């Protein structure tokens, strides 16, 4: 019988990391940020929906294999509704959901060398009663998660995420932005991230910050919009009388921010 050594274990973890990272790279980045009236998650997409309502004050978006994203989404919806019904909607929090339900499940699959790992990297956003209580948690295919304050991003590479974060932070530095400003900053940050990923595939990408000029990014985003990509943005609104706090922004609401790219 063949033996399974620590070396094999290490090897298999590395192989699955490579496999997953390679597939995540293609994903369209996602930006989540707090704005004056609530929380925003924004991305650009082609065919599949990407921003989802999970529960009364929870939403999620992700990059990855679509059926894996679906599984995580369903597991989150199930856990949230079972808890919210049997106890109270107030007991459904992103911390409990990710730390004690979703992350352990993902980790277990990831650690099993004979199971197919999930190709998934996602953001969960929870609307607090006040902006300071908003919670943004990013979760990865190995079960690792991290808490973010104010904004969070996911993309196909750690470097692209860093660049996006830097741009987003500087664009929203003057306190809580209005929805329009948050949308505009998020679209721009998306462009920064996506461009880095596409550039990184080319041989001439030695200088990583090259091509990060404002004109380059804007042209890059405009090209994608022309090629049939469109903006999908979901919000959780803090002060509404509706039963649902979640909704997708419509074309009119996005129009102002998109006008800069369609001229």
């Amino acid at each position: 019988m063949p033996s399974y050594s620590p070396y094999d274990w290490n090897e298999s973890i590395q192989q699955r990391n490579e496999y997953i990272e390679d597939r995540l790279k293609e994903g369209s980045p996602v930006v989540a940020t707090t704005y004056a009236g609530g929380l925003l998650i924004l991305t650009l997409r082609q065919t599949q929906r990407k921003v989802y309502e999970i529960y009364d004050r929870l939403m999620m978006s992700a990059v990855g294999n679509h059926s894996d994203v679906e599984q995580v989404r369903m597991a989150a919806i199930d856990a949230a509704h079972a808890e919210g019904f049997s106890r109270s909607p107030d007991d459904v929090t992103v911390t409990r959901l990710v730390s004690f339900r979703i992350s352990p499940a993902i980790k277990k699959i990831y650690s099993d060398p004979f199971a197919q790992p999930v190709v998934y990297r996602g953001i969960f956003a929870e609307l607090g009663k006040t902006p300071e209580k908003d919670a943004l948690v990013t979760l990865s295919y190995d079960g690792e998660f991290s808490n973010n304050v104010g904004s969070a991003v996911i993309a196909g590479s750690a470097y692209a995420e860093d660049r996006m974060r830097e741009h987003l932070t500087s664009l929203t530095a003057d306190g809580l932005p209005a929805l329009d400003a948050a949308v505009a900053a998020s679209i721009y940050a998306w462009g920064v991230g996506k461009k880095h990923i596409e550039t990184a595939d080319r041989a001439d990408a030695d200088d990583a910050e090259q091509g990060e000029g404002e004109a380059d990014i804007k042209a890059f985003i405009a090209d994608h919009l022309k090629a049939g990509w469109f903006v999908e943005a979901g919000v959780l609104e803090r002060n509404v009388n509706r039963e649902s706090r979640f909704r997708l922004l419509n074309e009119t609401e996005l129009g102002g921010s998109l006008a800069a790219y369609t001229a």
Partner: protein
Amino acid sequence: MSTLFNVESTGRFTDLLSREFGSAATSGPGQPMPRAAGVPDIDTHSTTVIAVKYKDGVINVADRRATAGYTVMYDQAEKVLPLDDHTLISISGSFAKSVEVVRYLRHTFKYFERSQLQPMSLDGKLMELQRVIANNMPAALQGIGAFIPVLSTFDTEGNTGRIYFYDAMGGQFETAEYGAAGSGSGPIRGAFEYILRTKGPFREMDRTTALKETLTLLEIAADLDTATGGASKHLPAAKYITAAGIHDFTDDEIRAGLGR
């Protein structure tokens, strides 16, 4: 993929509950209860709730009294409850059961919409409510937990308000003008017909007029039925649904409707 994740999703909330808690722990529309000695057969006396159409949608009003036998338990009960952005349920009968059913239905509708990425159809929602009432029949027959709601909704496809009322077995009836439930609804039924014949259909009235008529009917019910509270101490609950969603009448509008 591991079985840690549920592979397929029906969007059926009862499936989730039995998976998570086992079937015995589900909300139990349908759990037979032990018969308690001395409890009357079916005791639905507790309220008056009224729904009428008006020209832009549906109005719901309800008194605020909750009773147990001859005792007034509470005089600020909220019996007009939103199920989703265009649906109100007005509850009569067992308060505990009604509130549980409302919680159940709200989760059922939202669970379907969030998991299936499309809202549950109006017929689907109506079927869920009928099933809950029908499943409650064994308990109701044993004298505990009978409840009869009136459901109002704005049908966004047909662009019109709709009102449904029910019997204890879950039988559903759609009404063209008005629906009412609770112990005070019987005594005022003739008054609805009188208004229809002398003042014209509710569905052609404006909001203010329709509110005034329904609050008057509610006050008559409070006069004729001990289990229905009057408006002297606490204002009745009053909401309306339009294409834009559910709205509360302001206290001033309700006072004006009561002629104060």
